[in-house]
């Protein structure tokens, strides 16, 4: 017990969990977690992790600039995220070029965000909120916003699901089949911008990978079936948010940190088990990193 007290244990955490701000945090966090689960698989498969991170940074000058102009920060965040998504999406598929441009824009946007922040005397809380998120400060208005965004995301992903999946896992063949791969890439980046906009408000620019990417990567390790991987990612995200919020009430620690810790902890556990299982498997079945030429095993006896 003394150890718990030393860690900042709050004996009345149950009452804290019942408070209105915690309600908002739980509902808002859950919606954001579900949206992250929906998008995460595609981000990982399309190798857009860096782009999602960059989009969050591009949102920073939007939010701090909005404070300067006297409009709601979330508006600036949204405009910059979606604008950035259109630019990144339109750049096309040459990954190497895209990484360089994305990285450059990321750095400039962060600098610009800092500059806007220095111009406005009162906006330093906006800056911290955008960088690290603040689940506990989610308002009723934000909940409405999250729900609308989540509805839009679910509807859009539902509509484009198969063509988006096809163009994500096998772009050359999808394109040859007449799937509008380029257009879907832009659509996906805009949807990603909406998800990033939500996740920034929950866990912040710097930590959002933990919700958008880590649970999806865990899901893919657990199952090779896309829809199941998405469901698992959503469950892991929701569990991370709930456990994180509960623990933050218990120990008076910022929830973002705890949410991130839970999500990364689950990933590490699954990764370790996966690794151990693969090293026990006979060679030729593990296969994760085998280049094609090294794996050209006799075709009809896969287990050697």
């Amino acid at each position: 017990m003394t150890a718990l007290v030393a860690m900042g244990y709050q004996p009345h955490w149950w009452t804290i969990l019942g408070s209105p701000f915690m309600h908002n945090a739980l509902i808002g966090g859950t919606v954001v977690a579900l949206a992250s689960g929906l998008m995460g698989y595609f981000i990982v498969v399309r190798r857009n992790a860096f782009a999602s991170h960059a989009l969050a940074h591009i949102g920073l000058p939007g939010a701090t600039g909005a404070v300067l102009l006297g409009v709601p920060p979330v508006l600036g965040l949204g405009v910059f995220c979606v604008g950035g998504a259109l630019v990144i999406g339109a750049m096309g598929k040459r990954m190497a070029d895209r990484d360089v441009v994305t990285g450059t824009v990321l750095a400039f946007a962060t600098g610009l965000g800092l500059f806007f922040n220095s111009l406005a005397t009162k906006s330093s809380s906006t800056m911290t909120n955008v960088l690290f998120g603040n689940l506990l400060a989610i308002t009723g208005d934000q909940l409405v916003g999250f729900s609308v965004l989540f509805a839009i995301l679910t509807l859009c992903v539902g509509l484009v699901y198969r063509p988006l999946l096809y163009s994500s896992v096998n772009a050359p063949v999808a394109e040859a089949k007449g799937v509008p791969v380029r257009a879907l890439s832009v659509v996906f980046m805009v949807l990603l911008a909406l998800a990033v906009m939500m996740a920034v408000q929950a866990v912040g620019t710097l930590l959002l990978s933990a919700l958008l990417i880590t649970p999806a990567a865990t899901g893919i390790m657990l199952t090779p079936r896309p829809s199941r991987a998405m469901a698992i990612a959503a469950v892991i995200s929701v569990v991370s948010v709930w456990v994180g919020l509960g623990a933050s009430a218990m120990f008076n620690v910022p929830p973002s940190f705890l949410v991130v810790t839970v999500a990364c902890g689950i990933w590490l556990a699954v990764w370790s088990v996966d690794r151990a299982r693969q090293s026990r498997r006979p060679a030729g079945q593990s296969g994760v990193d085998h280049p094609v030429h090294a794996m050209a095993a006799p075709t009809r006896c896969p287990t050697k």
Partner: protein
Amino acid sequence: MFRSDPDRGAAALALTGVSAVRGRRLIWSEATFEVPAGGIVALIGANGAGKTTLLHMILGLVPPASGEVRVFGRRPGEDNDGIGYVPQDYGATAGEAIRARDMVTLGLTGRRWAFGQTNPAQRQRVREILAAVDATDFAERRLAQLSGGQRQRIAIAEALVSGPRMLILDEPLASLDLRSQREIASLLGRLHRELGVTILVVAHDLNPLLSLLDSAIYLLDGHPHHASMTDVVDDALLTHLYGTPVQVVHTPQGEPYMRSAP
């Protein structure tokens, strides 16, 4: 030499005065030839000669700068299910995140908008095509866990699942070991016999395919031509084509074999 198919009438490929431009660069020009339906056809040429551009044109991804292209009498891209495509580096990006069977299923349903389960007929079709390429045993595994030869079978299954009239393969034997090369080549021969599908295959090393090929499209001095295999397997032509001495020798069984001339 070509199998005639009364139902199919139109040539598999018909190019009339076609030229190809990428950016501002002229890739090749004055392509006028017909490829009859039902054969196995090689597409050969030196690196950078424009083989991939021609493939993309047939698939409807690159419009001809001039002239007219017809695939089974239709404009390229008009009948997307009519052509199966096996690209190079199949499944390179997302092989870890999807089962081989799901990839083949996407070949059938990947263009459909909105949610919806695959129906029993579609699942049956996927099972049939996996069996046809001898891939049933490893269809449940992640694509990245398959060997090169296994992955190529899945790629062929995905290309064939929609019942195309033409199968286009881009370097299907590159990066395979000798045994897998032979197995994939004999699979192509068998599929050609059983399904009557026209096969167009890009290959640098023709030797594993020589016994199967009916004719070849070759890109020489910036112009595509089409000729029967007997005309193409010729020291002078191949030497000119590749810009290095090539010699055609014959094995004791009478099979032609191409090699670098000493």
